[in-house]
């Protein structure tokens, strides 16, 4: 993976020193909170419901074991022994104390990590396919491009005060695992007629209060044009984007108000101006970065141990069937470690679990770990013969739940258990749902299903693109949960449709069960997924299951 250059190292150290001084001045009263707040946010430090929260960037979701152990160390030393992996491939610590934040940032810098640009109206952590560099269906590893974008966007003088935050997602596969169509810029690698790799560039996607699927501004962008093109998009947005209304400031609204054809014309025009200014330095840099992402030295060895365990052990087989994905090397597998034990908090890992995952990556996984936007941890390169021993180790740590891609593999934002913006809780709803479907022993029968929960309209839990989405709201001083169906975050992206009136906290789990029972009833055959059934039949059978035949029910 990429190692910091001397420039990166001194930049991050300088920011730690600068912020340490700012914290000291806040604590001695030389800075007011109004002065300090934007400074702490630039360094990823929020004030939440019960405590401060530090959001640490995990660039394109890639970590090495040394970094994972340092996160565990920070969790033990400065927090309550755990961390929360987020839908933007970041990790959040929920209980840091302000005077100790400089020490945490120093500990992060010691392992080439930081919390810069994890808040504020700038380009945020660039997210990527969590199977990057390993997936069988991949054209090219997207992470060198993500790293190039990270270096270009970090402290970019023109883009530190954009109209609003700006999120870029990238995938090297035609099959989109990075929700690229719900980002300000989505980049999906494709090949042109000549077989050359390039990017489909999508602009103006986003969730939140006005969910929109991105539109394709360029079907095929040669990879060498990536930076000037992204810079063209940013500079058009920086001029056109609305600064008068926070709720209309994201590029999706700019696209909507300007019109697709017009904004595409402006981007292309700006690109024509920008392109000659990139004299090739970016391509030289990209070549250096590429070398850092060279594939590991794959072992050539028999996979009999895997085949034997798969035949003999039904628990291992169930886990292998759900938690493994196809690797480009057929002796290898991609392991998704479920951080979604039934009844546990989605995305929370204890320091012991972090250390175990680091050890497994070091011993069996070519020193590579990934965080997915679905809040799980990935070992991208595991030789199949090592899978039984990895599974056994994960079992002992409560990390062997065989539910990846199933109904209990729930995305949930922190919700009103932590977040100052939340309007309702998400975590306990996720916990109850996972326990319910586990108790019913139904989830393997239900099959692939993405259930996503957000605790407010900002949609950190991606509920709009869940096959089943749940949005927690405050309705007249009571938690109320609105359901959407038919959302999809892949290359066939769509925004879910509201079913009707919402449900109270103590009704929502039953309501979801009614939807699932209706699906099991009406699916054409066992292989028809929930999303396929929904696309065939629409809302009708599910509304009937939720609200009764007369389709009339008062809002809770």
């Amino acid at each position, binding site marked *: 993976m990429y190692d910091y250059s001397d420039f990166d190292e001194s930049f991050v150290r300088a920011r730690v020193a600068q912020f340490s001084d700012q914290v000291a001045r806040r604590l001695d009263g030389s800075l007011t909170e109004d002065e300090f707040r934007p400074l702490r946010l630039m360094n990823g430090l929020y004030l939440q419901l019960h405590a401060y929260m530090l959001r640490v960037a995990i660039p394109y979701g890639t970590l090495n074991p040394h970094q994972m152990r340092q996160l565990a160390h920070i969790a033990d030393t400065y927090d*309550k022994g755990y961390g929360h992996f987020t839908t933007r491939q970041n990790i959040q610590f929920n209980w840091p104390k302000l005077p100790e934040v400089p020490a945490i940032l120093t500990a992060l810098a010691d392992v080439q990590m930081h919390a810069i640009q994890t808040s504020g109206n700038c380009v945020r952590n660039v997210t990527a396919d969590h199977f990057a560099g390993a997936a069988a269906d991949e054209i090219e590893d997207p992470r060198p491009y993500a790293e190039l974008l990270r270096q270009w966007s970090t402290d970019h003088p023109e883009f530190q005060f954009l109209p609003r935050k700006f999120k870029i997602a990238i995938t090297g596969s035609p099959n989109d695992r990075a929700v690229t169509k719900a980002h300000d810029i989505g980049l999906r690698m494709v090949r042109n007629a000549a077989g050359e790799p390039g990017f489909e560039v999508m602009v103006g996607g986003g969730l939140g209060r006005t969910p929109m699927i991105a539109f394709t501004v360029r079907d095929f962008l040669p990879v060498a044009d990536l930076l000037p093109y992204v810079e063209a998009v940013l500079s058009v947005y920086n001029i056109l984007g609305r600064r008068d209304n926070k709720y209309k400031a994201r590029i999706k609204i700019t696209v909507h108000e300007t019109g697709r054809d017009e904004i595409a014309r402006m981007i292309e025009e700006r690109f024509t101006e920008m392109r000659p200014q990139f004299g090739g330095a970016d391509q030289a840099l990209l070549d250096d970065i590429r070398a850092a992402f060279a594939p590991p030295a794959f072992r050539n060895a028999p996979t009999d141990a895997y085949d034997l365990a798969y035949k003999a052990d039904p628990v291992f087989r169930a886990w292998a069937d759900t938690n493994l994905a196809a690797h480009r090397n057929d002796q290898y597998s991609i392991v998704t470690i479920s951080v979604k034990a039934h009844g546990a908090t989605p995305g929370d890992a204890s320091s012991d679990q972090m250390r175990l995952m680091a050890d497994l990556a070091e011993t069996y996984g070519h020193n590579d770990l990934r965080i997915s936007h679905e809040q799980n941890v990935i070992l991208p390169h595991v030789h199949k013969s090592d899978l039984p021993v990895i599974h056994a180790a994960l079992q002992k740590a409560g990390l062997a739940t065989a539910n990846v891609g199933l109904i209990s593999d729930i995305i949930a934002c922190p919700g009103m258990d932590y977040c100052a913006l939340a309007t309702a809780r998400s975590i306990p709803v996720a916990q109850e749902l996972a326990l319910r479907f586990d108790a019913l022993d139904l989830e393997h029968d239900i099959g692939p299903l993405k259930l996503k929960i957000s605790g407010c309209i900002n949609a950190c839990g991606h509920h709009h693109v869940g096959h089943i989405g749940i949005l927690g709201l405050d309705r007249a001083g009571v938690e109320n949960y609105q359901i959407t169906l038919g959302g999809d975050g892949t290359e066939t992206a769509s925004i879910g449709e509201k079913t009707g009136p919402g449900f109270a906290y103590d009704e929502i789990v039953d309501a979801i069960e009614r939807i699932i029972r209706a699906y099991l009833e009406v699916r054409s055959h066992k292989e028809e997924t929930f999303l396929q059934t929904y696309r065939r039949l629409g809302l009708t059978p599910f509304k009937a299951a939720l609200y009764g035949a007369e389709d009339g029910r008062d809002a809770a």
Partner: protein
Amino acid sequence: MSRKYTPKVVTANDLRIGDVVYLTADNRWSRLHAEAELICEEDHANTRLAFAAAQRLAIVGPYLADAKAGPNGPEPTHFREAFRTRGPSNYAHGKQVDLADV
């Protein structure tokens, strides 16, 4: 003459720890909602909020939250404020355990 005023407490977060705090009638910042001053009159509420806003070495983000009188002191009326008196529901962290030995 005066409209019925929903009683309030002044609440904020501790500057150093971030923990939820409440302004008491004797100008302390308490961790306990029940020790808060229950403010039943709008002008007084604004005076107390201004007093709180000046305590910038102690607290962050003071605001007025709806409350009601209870047998042991003021109680929250909205679920968000009720959560702030306890901590998160997924772990025994925050006030629900930290205050056990207060």
